[in-house]
């Protein structure tokens, strides 16, 4: 049983090199985001995995839903995925493509989770600090979570900086309990 990310990687790399050559990374991002949205839908998944439904029927369904969002190349990609039976991993392909794009453009998405809402200046200083640490442009999304009690947790890709009061209290508990 191979990992989904292993299966998605060749597709994402192929699309990326194509997009790079054509210089339309943004367009492909949008196309893949649309396809991901559609392919993640519950009823869509049922249709895809249904053995009674033929490939042509699935493809025409996709075309109808996406309408103008899908051009010829997008359609080709969809046909290829259907041929190899990889329609289910389209969300994973989209994610892998985003990672490659972010790597290339030197940008990264960071999520800041805090106990209390972060104001604009704080957000800016966090972005600056992250830029210095990671060497990339950072786009920040914020979220509040009261259970943190204080401080922030910053997630960027695989890296996490945990400065929340909740975690510190847990650490103290463990060190006192020995």
């Amino acid at each position, binding site marked *: 049983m191979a*990992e989904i*990310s*292993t299966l998605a990687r060749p597709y994402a790399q192929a699309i990326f090199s194509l997009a790079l050559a054509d210089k339309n990374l943004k367009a492909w991002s949008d196309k893949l985001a649309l396809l991901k949205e559609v392919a993640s839908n519950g009823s869509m998944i049922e249709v895809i995995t249904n053995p009674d439904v033929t490939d042509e029927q699935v493809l025409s369904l996709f075309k109808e839903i996406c309408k103008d969002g899908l051009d010829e190349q997008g359609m080709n990609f969809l046909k290829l995925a259907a041929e190899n039976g990889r329609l289910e991993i389209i969300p994973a392909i989209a994610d892998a493509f985003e990672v490659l794009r972010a790597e290339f453009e030197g940008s990264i998405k960071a999520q800041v989770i805090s106990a209390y809402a972060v104001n604009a200046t704080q957000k800016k200083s966090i972005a600056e600090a992250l830029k210095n*640490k990671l060497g990339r442009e950072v786009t920040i999304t914020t979220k509040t979570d009261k259970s943190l009690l204080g401080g922030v947790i910053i*997630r960027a*890709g*695989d*890296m*996490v*900086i*945990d*400065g929340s009061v909740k975690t*510190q209290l847990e*650490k*103290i508990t*463990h*060190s*006192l309990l*020995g």
Partner: protein
Amino acid sequence: MQLNPSEISDLIKSRIENFDVTIEANTEGTVVSLTDGIALIHGLSDVMSGEMIEFPGNTFGMALNLERDSVGSVVLGDYKHISEGDKVKCTGRILEVPVGESLLGRVVDSLGNPIDGKGPIDAKETSPIEKIAPGVISRQSVDQPVQTGLKSVDAMVPIGRGQRELIIGDRQTGKTAVAVDAIINQKDSGIKCIYVAVGQKASSIAAVVRKLEEFGAMDNTIVVAAPASDAAAMQYIAPYSGCTMGEYFRDRGEDALIIYDDLTKQAWAYRQVSLLLRRPPGREAYPGDVFYLHSRLLERASRVSADFVEKATDGKVTGKTGSLTALPVIETQAGDVSAFVPTNVISITDGQIFLETDLFNSGIRPAINAGLSVSRVGGAAQTKIIKKLGGGIRLDLAQYRELAAFAQFASDLDEATRSQIERGQRVTELMKQTQYSPYSIAQMAISLFAATKGYLDDVEVAKIVDFEDALQDYMKANHADLMSQINESGDYNDDIEKALDDAVAAFKSNSSW
């Protein structure tokens, strides 16, 4: 002495105040599957091989399989509270354990946590459990003895400081007994001992600890316990943890002795972990690197030169060599020394002590088979007196073994054959020793002297043990200064020979046994 309630709260207050609030950036991952103590993790892009991974609930794991899209890790401990979807973090530290003198006298688990209820361990240093063994230039040849206190071992298969001597035999042949006797005899020798118990019953480990305490040997011993109820991963790393604790002493110019009891169970635990990690099985279902499992462990037991010690201690200790002696134990099935793991370990170690069930059952304990047991260091690691007097013992036993079949027709044989058989029988009786009664060098010298010089030849075989006991008592009572002289110098010259001759002759003529 009661602790004041305010003292307790002051203690807690100071611990909280001094708590180091560091915020680090870690790489995070998600548990994708968790079966039988093996967690498959997605993410963790910066993980190192063998790194400690932190699971929720203050549990740790070790990253063993680094694949392109997932990390396979073993959970070191209980895993019931971990579920799929949990976040795990890298710690940036390769698996390490506390080391130092503060561990002496304590019973710890494979990660160095105390399990004897005597409070936390104040270890100033930690050290990684996987280390490369000293190189060729850093080593020095073995020429100092480790006195085990067992006559048959010290006379026939002597062990030196820095040697690896395998103790191999079937179940219930006295392997642990040999090891424990060796530890008890190091009470005053300055050698620090480490007893690593892998996969044994917790009651057996408790019994060993009790015995060591009874004989006062626990104060310079560390017990690393990974009983059968521990996770397989803990049993797998326990010998490496013990070895790291022993290397601490070796690298500061001191001597240490480590006993791995036993490596068969560690190989089983490693096999379990490898099969669960989907590594391909080889012979006897062991993974392909089961040889490397033991070789990298046993290569770390060595004698190191003074230069190495000086470099390792940053110049603080000069002119002293350090050593770590290893006594691994392997359990064979039905005496089969040609099975996979026994042959592996025999080829790694510098000799073996082979214990046999038949000998054990016929009353010869320690049940050492003198023919198959060997020490590749040999005489270089014996005190002078034992070397001189013990040299003939092996030969006598070898000749006896050759003629053993004829022992039943003892009356029909020629003089020479009969005397060899009789000598062999007496020497075999002499090599018997009760448990927990180690012999000093002088005591051993007396017994070997009596055997080699023929003083036993006219004593009945059945009375040899009594004869020896009476002789030892006599020497202790009447020649204590000669005994202490031998103990201190270990020399053997004409004067000592004459003194011993006179003493034993006097004993034989005057005493009864």
